[in-house]
């Protein structure tokens, strides 16, 4: 990281010159980065205020008094965030200054709302989702620190493209192994280690897949983009170049059939299609991808009962029969009632009844927040997501090489797609599928995965903004 000029014999003759350049180099190193990091610190402090206020309001609204216990736990997380911030000052001084504060704010608001639902369900200690969420947040932040500290050069990831592809496939298959896999609400996406720790390997697979896709597409983009026939003003690929997209499509369909997880399948496939589009610049890939997925989803909705049920809940949610049915639209409709109860400015934190909706702390966290913060609050949350995604995309657009561009766009697009799938599902824009709302929803694996994504984006943005031109080696 240091840019000190190596001592050359000539420098000894002019010590003053050397001192001056040394001072200048140090000044340049300190001045520019610290401007970014100071901005980050300021926004972080603001985020802490928002999170603290959310916790206090939840307590005042739901219990009527301030209890120090949970506040101390959240303050502990804030200290950890400051450690991450300090780590960035040392290891990635030019990283993007707004990603971390936004992630912290979303995470903190999520914890506050989960805590609010724990109060309503009278859960305390380790039984409470909020306690586990705080612990998982701590683990996730440590993971983020490790990524920032250990991944000095992101190009290393490019070298291990196929290793990451392999890891992703293994992670996807893990829950299907008998004895290790866990069946939760019909979906086989969990693994349980010794019955204590349960984890969703698909979340980690998401990151590994993004790295694999980026590396793979950088290597093959020419053949995927250059050749083919033009039809309807778009250049369509040759039949044999359809291989990769068909493989990913089959993989997604396998996830739908065997793991019974619609959302994850959509996430993987959508990520691949958008990265393919980024790599080749061909609209036809998006068209082919959407046709494949819609086709697959229609077939799945006709043949697989659980997918069919999701579709009926979506299209016919307010039908009393559908509402009363086992696995029917009860949850979806309760979520919508909650959102309606919230109205424009919400009931106020701690003063609604979000706990009526099943899974209010995980799948329906957005409906819970919508009830208590109202449309105004929900729009602010969407604005925060928008900022994360926009920053990620802009890191991609200023990237130094194609691998980094694809990786940054792929990672930020996963966040966008996840938000769309979850918010769209809760608000009945699309059929509801079981994914997690990034940073907000209760769920350890998803938190860890999303914090790693943020750490990767921070790492990538640091390499984009390295000050000073790359002075070519004297050749």
């Amino acid at each position: 990281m240091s840019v000190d000029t190596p001592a050359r014999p000539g420098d000894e003759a002019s010590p003053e010159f050397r001192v001056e350049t040394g001072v200048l180099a140090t000044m340049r190193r300190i001045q520019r980065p610290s401007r970014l990091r100071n901005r980050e610190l300021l926004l972080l402090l603001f985020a802490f205020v928002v999170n603290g206020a959310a916790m206090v309001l939840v307590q005042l609204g739901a219990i009527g008094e301030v209890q120090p216990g949970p506040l101390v736990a959240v303050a502990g997380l804030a200290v950890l965030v400051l450690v991450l911030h300090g780590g960035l000052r040392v290891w990635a001084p030019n990283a993007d200054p707004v990603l971390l504060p936004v992630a912290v704010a979303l995470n903190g608001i999520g914890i506050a709302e989960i805590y609010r639902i724990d109060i309503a369900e009278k859960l305390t200690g380790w039984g409470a989702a909020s306690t586990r969420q705080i612990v998982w947040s701590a683990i996730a932040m440590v993971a983020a620190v490790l990524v920032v500290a250990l991944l000095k050069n992101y190009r290393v990831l490019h070298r291990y493209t196929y290793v990451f592809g392999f890891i992703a496939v293994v992670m996807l298959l893990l829950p299907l192994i008998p004895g290790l896999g866990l069946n939760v609400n019909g979906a086989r996406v969990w693994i349980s280690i010794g019955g204590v720790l349960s984890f969703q390997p698909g979340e980690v697979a998401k990151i590994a897949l993004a790295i694999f896709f980026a590396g793979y597409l950088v290597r093959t983009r020419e053949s995927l983009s250059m050749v083919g026939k033009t039809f309807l003003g778009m250049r369509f690929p040759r039949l044999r170049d359809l291989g990769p997209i068909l493989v990913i499509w089959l993989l997604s369909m396998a996830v739908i059939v065997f793991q019974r997880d619609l959302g994850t399948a959509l996430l993987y496939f959508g990520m691949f299609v958008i990265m393919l589009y980024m790599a080749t610049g061909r609209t036809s890939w998006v068209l082919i991808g959407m046709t494949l997925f819609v086709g697959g989803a229609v077939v799945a909705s006709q043949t697989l009962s659980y997918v069919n049920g999701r579709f009926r809940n979506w299209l016919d949610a307010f039908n009393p029969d559908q509402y009363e049915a086992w696995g029917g639209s009860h949850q979806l409709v309760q979520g919508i009632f909650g959102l309606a109860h919230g109205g424009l400015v919400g009931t106020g934190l701690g003063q609604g009844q979000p706990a009526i909706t099943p899974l209010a702390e995980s799948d329906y966290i957005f409906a819970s927040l919508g009830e208590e913060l109202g449309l105004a609050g929900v729009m602010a949350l969407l604005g925060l997501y928008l900022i994360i995604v926009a920053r990620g995309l802009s890191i991609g657009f200023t990237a130094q090489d194609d691998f980094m561009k694809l990786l940054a766009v792929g990672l930020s697009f996963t966040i966008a797609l996840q938000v769309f799938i979850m918010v769209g599902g809760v608000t009945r824009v699309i059929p509801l599928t079981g994914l997690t709302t990034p940073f907000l929803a209760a769920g350890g694996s998803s938190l860890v995965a999303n914090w790693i994504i943020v750490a990767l984006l921070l790492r990538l943005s640091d390499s984009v903004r390295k000050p000073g031109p790359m002075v070519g080696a004297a050749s």
Partner: protein
Amino acid sequence: MSTLTLLVMKIGFLVLLWFFVFAIVYSLRTELFGLKARKGQQATAAAPAPAPAAKRKPSTAPQPPEGSATSATASTLVIVAGTRAGERIPLGREPITIGRSSDSTLVLKDDYTSTHHARLVLWNDGWMIQDLDSTNGTFLNGKRISSPTPVPLGVPVKVGATSFELRH
């Protein structure tokens, strides 16, 4: 806790949340509305130059006011406009390559720059700018160059969205 207090706090939290969103957007303003900030930087960067007014006008005169100064004495390339305004590259005797390609000496990442756009070469006792058949051209003092042209000190060279000049 009275209902009124809770109501005030509820609204207060929403205001706080939106302030947070706006604080972040505000901190990004230089990147969102980069043009204004860039203009300011350009003005300060151009201030020490003897004749800043001449540079603004798309002057047709090929020779700038300080054209008599030979550029052999130029020691730095200063970027005066563009996303990297204010940066300096020390000049040695090696040619400086400019382009989007990451092996260029001066890497410019914008849509108007070609992969290998132009290069600066020290020829006899002056720096020459040579356009490497770029799509959008290289402009010396507002005029597109077609053949290697000497670059006098303090005259802006425009490549894509970036302008730079040679200084002592």
